[in-house]
């Protein structure tokens, strides 16, 4: 399970997270809060993609910055700029090679992404970018999924399949979303971002 221990993250003088300690003990979480408050940053930190100013974040008692821990994490966020000079196929090939996992052809078909495989990332539409981002998060079947606004831009079929998929997912799922399908879903424990911070004022 994911645990934040006295985590602080500052951008210049603004504290996004200030001495936050939280244990994500349940299987499914939905983090809510106003735009720009730091929900995406929290996911990036939890995936070990950004450096902390203080504290530590562990998954199953191992630091999220360790390579072995990263194998068990999957993140999808629009903030992660993907190498736009590659095709979607090349990006997925590389991802599967890194994680020693099979090419996620079933997921690709469920998301209706097969036709876009040969397209360069820079030429993908917003919805297709969301799909490739989700595929990269899901392909290696991580123990913990960190999804930033996972349904934004998806077509109806993909959206319904994703919600169903996440509902049945065996690992931990932490999403940030404003959508009622998550916020009013009893399977997801709702976490107000403001409540995570002991002190949310500017230093």
């Amino acid at each position: 399970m994911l645990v934040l221990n006295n985590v602080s993250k500052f951008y210049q003088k603004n504290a996004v997270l200030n001495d936050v300690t939280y244990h994500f003990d349940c299987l499914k979480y939905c983090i809510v809060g106003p735009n720009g408050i730091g929900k995406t940053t929290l996911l990036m930190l939890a995936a070990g993609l950004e450096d902390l100013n203080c504290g530590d974040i562990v998954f199953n008692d191992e630091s999220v910055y360790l390579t072995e821990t990263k194998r068990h994490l999957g993140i999808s966020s629009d903030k992660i700029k993907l190498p736009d000079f590659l095709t979607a196929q090349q990006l997925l090939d590389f991802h599967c090679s890194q994680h020693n996992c099979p090419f996620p052809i079933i997921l690709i078909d469920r998301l209706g992404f097969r036709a876009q495989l040969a397209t360069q990332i820079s030429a993908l539409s917003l919805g297709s970018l969301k799909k490739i981002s989700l595929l990269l998060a899901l392909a290696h079947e991580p123990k913990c999924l960190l999804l930033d606004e996972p349904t934004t831009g998806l077509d109806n079929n993909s959206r319904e399949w994703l919600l169903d998929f996440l509902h049945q997912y065996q690992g931990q799922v932490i999403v940030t979303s404003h959508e009622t399908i998550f916020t009013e879903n009893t399977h997801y424990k709702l976490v107000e971002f403001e409540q995570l911070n002991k002190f949310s004022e500017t230093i």
Partner: protein
Amino acid sequence: MYKYSLVRGKIYYHELKQLLPSVANLLAFLLSILYLAISASILTALISLSVIADIDTSIEQRIIYQVGYSVLLYFLIRIQKSAILGLNYKHYLASLPAPKRLKHTNTVILTVVAGNLPLLAPLFLLMFTPSLSTFINQLHFPIFAISILMVALISLKNKTFPWLSFVFTPLVLVFVFGVEDGSVSPMSINSIWLFIMVVETYYEPLSFITDKSLRIKLYWQIRWIAIIRKPASILTRIFLSGLFIGMAAYVQNKMGQVANDYLQVLFIWVLSILIGSYQFDNEKFYLQYQYYLNGLLNRAGLRYCLDISPVICITLISCIVLYLWLHFTLNLIVLLPLEVLVTIICVSKFHRNFFIIPSLLSGFLLYTQ
């Protein structure tokens, strides 16, 4: 018509201004240190035309000079390809109701501007042919002039580096005909070379390197594709390094002696700054794809080593050329990779002030010589 040309001209100018910052740190250094040498180095390519035009030049020397001249012109135009064709605004330009002929004319004009002296000089020299009989007797040079036009076309049209024309064919020609001088005429050599170039313009046999179906399994393949998709920076380094080494070779050739140790240290200092400053591109790449790279399972240190490998390759090739062609001493040759590495690390650590430590190191070596 005028307005369309104006737009193309403005795009060309704007794109060049965008290109400059990527090499601005390097150029600022070079221009401040070697103001006259850089200007003079551009003339070396033109001076080599006299060797190419001479019908008595040996086959081996002819091929080296012709390929060298062509590669320099290729890089000069290739660096400006996006600016010449307005690639970043291609959809907008395509939407304009300008006739195709006008669009092509503008492309030709901008290519001439981009290629300027190295592109026009061979054609200009043809105008001074004294008679038709001289023209026919020395047909190798008009064929070379046409080849130069083909180089300009390849620079703009082809997606990949023309390995067949610039590497494989010259090597085969040197090994087959270079051994027995006089076995084949300069005209035949140039005709074969021109034929290969025409073939490569319309059929890129090695284009599979950038093929979208290339399976990506390892990190270096990602970096390789990134470099191929935006090759301006690495090509600038290769172009300037080639020009700089060529200039030194010409000066040595004219003076008939090998540069002394002081000059060798000075030369290695400039070359190391020139090559090592490529690290600015790697740093830009790290910043651009920061989160994606942080999520990869391989170690950042390993990625760093892989990312500097193209620069190390250029350095090693330069070392071989300096040792075999310019007869630099072995003791000083080993300095080049060392100084390049120091420059690379300094770029990562000190950014714009990257050249201070390599310069101090060279200063110390000059002092101890």
